[in-house]
Every structure is written in structure tokens, then in C-alpha cells.
């Protein structure tokens, strides 16, 4: 059967479309010239400059602290949520599912302003802690969805087999369910981590003066010049993200 070439062409064109700006960015980060339009030869000067930008390191530190703590907490909350959603099929879970699903489609700006007004109304001081709270909030849904997906693929006759062989419910969970679910949990955690590191809009709304994360720093750099530094920084971030995605894909495909 003669197959149409159209899907292939569209896909390839789309991939080019996807990666063109990223490629330009990466290439320009090695551009010795200050202006993207002229090529000044290969250079690492912008990366070296980055090393000296103290504010960037400060922002990075904040981002990492928040990302680690937020992903940890959202793993715990998201995994329990996934268990509840999978194990029980009641009206409560339908509502639970709605609440978990909503943040995934909700525009970030609405979540951002909601949290801002919430904190203002309560008189909570905006800072790293409020950023942490906000990040956990949107990460839970992602972790829950990933783990839920793994649970739905999970063969529960394995749990019955464990019980049949003498394991009680607790032992069966820790010796069989958790080890097999672990790749999914870690993958969910990785997703939460990258989302937290990359988040701008919600963070911007709840950050308050004085607390910067890396994306906020990048934003002000974009607004106020110095593109080459941004190129270099972005490239580094891209590498980290790429590694995280690749790693978690590996985790998820091995034990399907």
C-alpha cells in the first residue's frame, strides 16, 4: 500500500522547527562576538563570565534548594495520591481526581495570582518559603499522574502471589509493589525537579523582593540585556534537562 509521505514530512519539519531556536542558542553561546548576527569564532568566554556572576550562583543555589525540597515533598504527596486514586473507586476519588487534574491544565498565571493573593490575605511574607509551597502545589499533580500510570500498568496478581506465599499486606507492599514502582516514582520526582527548576510565572508572583531563583534571574537578564550570558546559561540548563529526561525515559522503559 502506497503510504503518503505527508506525515513524515510534517514530522521532520516540526522537529526542525522545534530545535532550530535551541540550536541557534547553543551555537551562539560559543560565539565570541557579542552580537548574535555576527560570528566571532568559537569561544568559551561567556561560560567563563558566568562563573564570576555571583548573583547567578546565588539564584542557582536558591533554585536547587527549592527544587530538591519541593520534589521530595511532592513525591510523597503525589505517590500517596496515586495510590488512593488507583486503589479506591469512590465518589471521593472522583473529586480527588478532579482536584489533582485541574492544576495540569490551569494557566500558570491564575495559580500564581491566586497564591499571591492568598499569601497577602494571610499576611504571609513572600520569600523562598512561599516559593517552596507554590512549587509543591503544582508538582503534586505531575508526580501523581506519572505514578498512577505505572500503577495502572502494574500486575496485581504479583501482590496476590506474594500473599499466597505468606507475605502479609505490609510485607507484600514493601517487597514487591514498591521495588517495582520505584522507577515510576523516581521518574515522577525527576519531572517535579525539572519543573521546579524551570518555573517562572508562578515563582515570579510569589517571590517577593530579595528572593531570586534562576529563572527570575534569567528573566531580568532578558529584560535588561546581556544576551550572550543568557545563551551560555540556557545551554547549561538544556544539558541538565536533557540528561534528566533521558535518564527518566530509561527508567520507565526498562521494566514496562
Amino acid at each position, binding site marked *: 500500500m502506497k503510504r503518503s509521505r505527508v506525515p513524515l514530512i510534517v514530522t521532520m519539519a516540526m522537529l526542525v522547527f522545534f530545535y532550530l531556536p535551541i540550536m541557534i542558542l547553543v551555537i551562539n553561546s560559543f560565539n565570541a562576538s557579542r552580537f548574535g548576527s555576527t560570528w566571532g569564532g568559537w569561544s568559551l568566554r561567556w561560560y567563563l563570565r558566568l562563573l564570576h556572576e555571583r548573583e547567578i550562583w546565588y539564584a542557582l543555589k536558591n533554585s536547587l534548594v527549592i527544587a530538591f525540597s519541593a520534589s521530595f515533598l511532592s513525591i510523597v504527596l503525589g505517590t500517596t495520591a496515586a495510590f488512593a486514586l488507583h486503589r479506591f473507586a469512590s465518589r471521593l476519588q472522583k473529586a480527588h481526581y478532579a482536584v489533582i487534574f485541574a492544576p495540569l491544565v490551569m494557566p500558570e498565571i491564575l495559580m500564581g495570582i491566586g497564591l499571591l493573593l492568598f499569601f497577602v490575605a494571610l499576611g504571609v511574607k513572600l520569600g523562598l518559603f512561599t516559593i517552596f509551597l507554590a512549587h509543591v502545589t503544582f508538582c503534586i499533580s505531575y508526580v501523581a499522574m506519572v505514578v498512577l500510570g505505572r500503577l495502572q500498568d502494574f500486575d496485581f496478581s504479583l501482590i496476590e502471589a506474594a500473599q499466597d506465599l*505468606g507475605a502479609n499486606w505490609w510485607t507484600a507492599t514493601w517487597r514487591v509493589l514498591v521495588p517495582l514502582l520505584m522507577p515510576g516514582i523516581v521518574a515522577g520526582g525527576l519531572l517535579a525537579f525539572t519543573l521546579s527548576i524551570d518555573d517562572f510565572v508562578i515563582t515570579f508572583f510569589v517571590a517577593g523582593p530579595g528572593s531570586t531563583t534562576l529563572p527570575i534571574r534569567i528573566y531580568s537578564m532578558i529584560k535588561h540585556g546581556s544576551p550572550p550570558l543568557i545563551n551560555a546559561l540556557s545551554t547549561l540548563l538544556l544539558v541538565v534537562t536533557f540528561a534528566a529526561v533521558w535518564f527518566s525515559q530509561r527508567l520507565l522503559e526498562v521494566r514496562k
Partner: protein
Amino acid sequence: MADQEFLEFEDVSKYFGRIHAVDHVSFSVRKGEFFSLLGPSGCGKTTLLRILAGFERPDTGRVLLDGRDITALPPHQRKVNTIFQNYALFPHLTVRENIAFGLLIEKRPKKEIEKEVERMLALIQMEDQAEKYPDKISGGQKQRVAIARALIKKPQVLLLDEPLAALDLKLRQRMLMELDLIHDEVGITFLYVTHDQGEAMSLSDRIAVMNHGVIEQMGTPAEIYEAPRSSFVAAFIGDTNFFEGLVAEVVGDEYSRLAIDGFPPVLCFNDKHISLGNPVYLSIRPEKFHISREKPETGNKHNVVPGKVEDVIYQGLMTRYWVRVEGYRISVVQQHSRFLLDEKPIRWDEEVWISWHADDGYMLERYSESDEKLMSLPPENIGEMNGEGNGAA
């Protein structure tokens, strides 16, 4: 008599909403027996198995194992182990670790576990595969590992839930023999659940044939085959011909003559002592008939009727004939015990005589027309495929 009731199901029922998956079932299994629950899907056999394993709680009745009431015990406390249909081997553990799992849970000393695992690996002949993961071994091997994993715990009963269903034909035949050998060697009571009558007949000491949540008949394979109590059992196991008639005459102590539409009076063994004038349903298996061109010389215990061959299906070992006798289309099977090419085989449209011994027909206790659909005999015409037609075999 204690041996008789090693495993007892007492008035066990299980309902799922309005469905009676298991309906007041009572039976017992002897120690060391190979016992099968045989029936079509939905008959309740798997539910009974799961009740015994502890994954379902019966709504009525109780289960006794070696005198002890285990009905309320959770699965991990029962001395009963299951071979699951898809084997349920732990993918994150090696073959060795899978087998050792049950003993690890019991917190047995390490030395003992190692010894037992080696013993099991030798039994299933997989010593050189011990470090492999389940995704790297074949279906037959997975099943052996599942068996070893269960047997190592020395259960009082081993439950097998359609263990051969996932295997292809040749492998299935081999594993059938292996299961038989293992049972003989190990001596544990086996409770086997299947829809395949071939498996049940070849492996079991006794079979319980189930339908719609109840046991229709229980007995040895031969008892079930030769003396089916209901049309369901007669039709589900093998094939048969059903006849409907009235008791026209009682002959001596054990025989009756039946009036069947279109037949001369049929002599039949009447162990059920059905009296004059009552309706009777007769089951005669195809291999009990003899077919010939000439009218056979037979004793007074034989029935002989003329008919016409409507269809011939040659199957090497035997030939199956469809013979029309008045309103009945009778299935006759003849094994070729002599060199066939020396004879002149009976062909389509020929006038023939079929005969059978009065002892070879069996009177049914219960008959239901819908059971005829269970047989693997092809219908007469396209219309019959939808359940129309005269229903007679």
C-alpha cells in the same frame, strides 16, 4: 474415613451482586488426590479456587482443611499455595530469588533456604537458569519456576488455575506429563481448575464438572464420560447423540423398551428404573455405534436401525459419519483398526445400518435442549447456527 475429607467445601456460596458465581457447593477432596474443577468460563471454578486460596470470602458455608476451619484466614496464613494463570513471577527477582521468596518470608535460616532452593531447582531441572530474570525464560520454564516457588513451602494443597492456558499445543502436552510426574513424585493434593476436558481427563483422579455455580457431577474421568447424569455433562465432555422417547415396555429387571419417534422399539438398560409411560432422554456416544452396508447379525440385546449417510468426515484415525434416521441426525464414529485401503469405505448418500448394544446407551437424569450447543458437532444448516432447527443431534 479421615482420609476422605482432607479438604472440604461445606455449602459454599459466593454472590457478586445478583450473579451466583458459586451456589451452595459442597464436596470434599481426598489427601494426595489430583482433583479437577472442570467447566466453561463463568461456571464458578476459579471463584472456588480463590475462596480456597483466601482471596475471596464465601457468603455462605465454610472451608475445612485437614479438619481445621480456614474460612476466615487471610491468604498468607493458609498452608495452601497457588500457581497463577499468568504465573505471577516477580520480575525484579531472579529465578532463585523467586523460589526462595516464600521461605524468606518465613524467616528461615539462610543455610536451610539455600538447601531447599537447590533441591527445587534440581526437581524442575533449571539449575543453570537460576540467576536469570523471569523475562528471559520461556513460558514452560516460567511455569516450572511457579511450581517450584509454591512447592518449596510444602503446602497441604497446591492450587493450579488453568496453568496450561497460555502455552501452545505441543508445550501444553509436555507440561501435562510433567505435572503428572510432579504430582506422583511429590504426593501433595492438587486442585486443578480448567475448561479443557482433555487436561482434566488425563490428569485427574476425580473431576467435578461445574456449570452456573453448581457441581453437575463428580466422579472419576471414566464415570463422567460413560455415565453422564445430565445433558450438560454429556455434551460438555466429548460428543454424544441425544434421543427423546417414552418407556413403552418394561423387560425384565434391568431393561426397558423405548418408543422413540421414527425408530423401532429401542432396547435400553434402565438402571434408573423409570416406569412405564414416562419420558426418557437417552445419550449414546458416537463410538458406541457400529455402521455397515449390510444388516448385521446381532444378538437380542442389540438395536439395529436403517439410515442414510448424509456426511462423511475422514480423520485418519477414524471416520465420522452423519446418518439420518427419520428426524434424527446421528453422529457415528468408526475407528479404522484394519488397513483402510483394502476395504470399500462407506460413502455419502449410501443406505446403511447402524447398531448398538442396549447397555451402551445411557439414560440422563436431567436434560436441557440448550446443552446441545456445547458440542463440537457442526450444525445441519446455517439456520441452526443461530439456535433454530429441530435440536436433535
